[in-house]
């Protein structure tokens, strides 16, 4: 036999062997859905890196009930329309467990499809309360709610005893939801909300808004939304010499805001989940991330890791890969995870989740504020 033919035969034999092996051990597909591209892809990176790490480590430990986890990644660009499309793709691909989505406005419409098609979803990042308000059986999250995060921010502001505060949002489910929670808490706490106004996500010109904020002469500005817009507002505000202190939710707290706002990001207040990567029991995991050259400090890295781990733990507790039985097991059990002990209420929300106020610096670091 001449060499090229030999090579071909070997190749065919190998591929048959590989295919055979694929059939021998069944696999459990975990769909990971989040933004790989688009303006908030930075958060998607955190989500994918956390979920990949969890899948790798669980497989290295022998998988789940002897089966291997396989991560299948989907890009939803944080666009509700795209989220629905990929949710349907996942149905076709036979995915029965999803870690995602990231933006609340994507999670909401996609979860309708998952619930109908019997797919279990754990979102590591969507904080909008409405997602778990609809009595769905298969929806869980590994993060707190805007109705917890908003009051943390508002109570901090109240403790600073300001005369008046302006609340701005980007009119999207996440931004407006959290801005509303902040406004309501501020008003209950007797602080005047001088302005409550929406901007358009994706807009670049905030000169009119900045002028209005200067006119309103408020002590603090709270912004509900993501970093691309707040970065520009901060920068344009500083250029117009408006030196009010700004505050935002975890959607603004990542290093991309520094490339947009530069020096203007110094002193921004952000509510974030506590730094799970600084907890002592997570140091071994943190090291594993660092060996891969990845940064575990982003707010959604370990929540995504936890989402995968919960799916795996749920499957083992239920001794079944049926999403309904896994959901049942998740509601009943108590799980030890990198973000702490997780217990679910009947809606699929965690019984407790803490948010902390941080001060952001122009070099991308943050320090906790008391």
């Amino acid at each position, binding site marked *: 036999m001449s060499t090229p033919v030999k090579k071909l035969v070997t190749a065919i034999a190998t591929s048959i062997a590989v295919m055979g092996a694929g059939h021998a051990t069944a696999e459990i597909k975990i769909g990971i859905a989040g933004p790989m*591209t*688009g*303006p908030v*892809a*930075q958060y998607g990176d955190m989500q994918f890196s956390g979920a990949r790490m969890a899948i790798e480590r669980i497989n290295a430990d022998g998988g789940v009930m002897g089966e291997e986890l396989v991560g299948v990644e989907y890009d939803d660009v944080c666009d509700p329309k795209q989220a629905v499309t990929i949710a349907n793709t996942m149905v076709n691909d036979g995915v029965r467990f999803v870690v995602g989505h990231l933006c609340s406005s994507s999670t909401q419409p996609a979860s309708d499809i998952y619930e109908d098609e019997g797919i279990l979803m754990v979102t590591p990042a969507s904080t909008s309360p409405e997602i778990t308000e609809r009595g769905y059986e298969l929806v869980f999250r590994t993060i707190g709610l805007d109705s917890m995060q908003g009051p943390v921010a508002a109570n901090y502001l109240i403790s600073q005893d300001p005369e008046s505060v302006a609340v701005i949002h980007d*009119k999207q489910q996440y931004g407006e939801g959290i801005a509303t929670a902040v406004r309501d808490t501020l008003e209950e706490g007797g602080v005047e909300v001088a302005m409550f*106004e*929406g*901007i*358009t996500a*994706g*807009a*670049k*010109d905030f*000169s*009119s*808004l900045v*002028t*209005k904020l*200067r*006119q309103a*002469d408020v002590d603090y500005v709270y912004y509900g939304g993501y970093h*691309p817009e707040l*970065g*520009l507002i901060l*920068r*344009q505000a500083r*250029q*117009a*010499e408006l030196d009010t202190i700004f505050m935002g939710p975890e959607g603004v707290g990542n290093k*991309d805001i520094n*490339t*947009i*706002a*530069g020096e203007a990001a110094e002193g921004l207040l952000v509510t974030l989940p506590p730094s799970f990567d600084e907890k002592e029991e997570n140091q071994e995991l943190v090291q594993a991330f660092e060996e891969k050259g990845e940064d575990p400090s982003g707010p959604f890295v370990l929540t995504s890791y936890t989402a995968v781990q919960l799916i795996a733990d749920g499957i083992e507790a239920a001794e079944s890969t049926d999403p309904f039985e896994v959901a049942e097991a998740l509601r009943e059990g108590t799980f030890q995870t990198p973000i702490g002990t997780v217990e679910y209420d009947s809606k699929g929300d965690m019984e407790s989740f803490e948010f902390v106020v941080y001060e952001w610096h122009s070099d991308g670091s943050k320090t906790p504020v008391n």
Partner: protein
Amino acid sequence: MQDLLYFVQQLINGLTIGSTYALIAIGYTMVYGIIGMINFAHGEIYMIGAYTALIAITGLTALGIVWLPLILVVALLCAMIVSSSMGWAVERVAYRPVRGKHRLIPLISAIGMSIFLQNYVHLAQGSRNIGFPALIEGGFRFGAEDSFQTSITYMQITIFATTLVCMTILSLFISRSRIGRACRAVSQDLGMANLLGIDTNRIISATFVIGAALAAVAGLLLGMYYGSIDPLFGFIAGLKAFTAAVLGGIGSIPGAMLGGLILGVAESMTSGYLSGEYKDVVSFGLLILILLFKPTGLLGKPEVEKI
């Protein structure tokens, strides 16, 4: 007094934005005036101009050049050259082969080009917002120290001045130069101009090149003014500039200028006195009103049916 200062400030904000809308709108209006098609890829040309300028600025800074005028001039030239060649290429590839066909065909071709360019930049430059260095800082302030002050930044002055200079040069070019005269002839009657020995293909290419160069100027100015760029920002700006062109009368160059300024001021007054949420409602509402009551736009001439 306070209220007056606030009004003046919003007026300045609006005029700044408006003049850049006008710069972009020129591209739409000239192309429409000459071949009667809407170049929907124009917003992307503007976006590419901004990216090129940023790359040039970053490169020059890395080389250790800090003299501001030199950086600006080089960035501007790079942006204009790249955008212009892009405008020229887009016309050759996507519009010339389908010219003279049913008018929907170049329209679809333009939309396809716009999607292609957006995704090309996505791939080449990444999809994130990139910060644009603020090269021109500082400004003048008016009003009492402890109350509301009207400020006009050097950046805003630069934008006005550049727009004004560009518009003046363009008007002189169209009314005085040989190519300008040929442009007007082609716009009045393409077939006839062809018969009279004008190389109409060259004139049409020139139109695309001029429009793209002005869009590049707008790209550099707005990149510096706003502070960040992303591959999708040409789309919204293009839409606004298109609205400005229609508002002023599509096909008319002074109309594009007027339309841009009106749109900019309307937007900033809406967010200043009503709410930022209604900004786009007002600008597109204005477009609908104009189309209903004066379909040719403010300065547009009604099309005379030639028999």
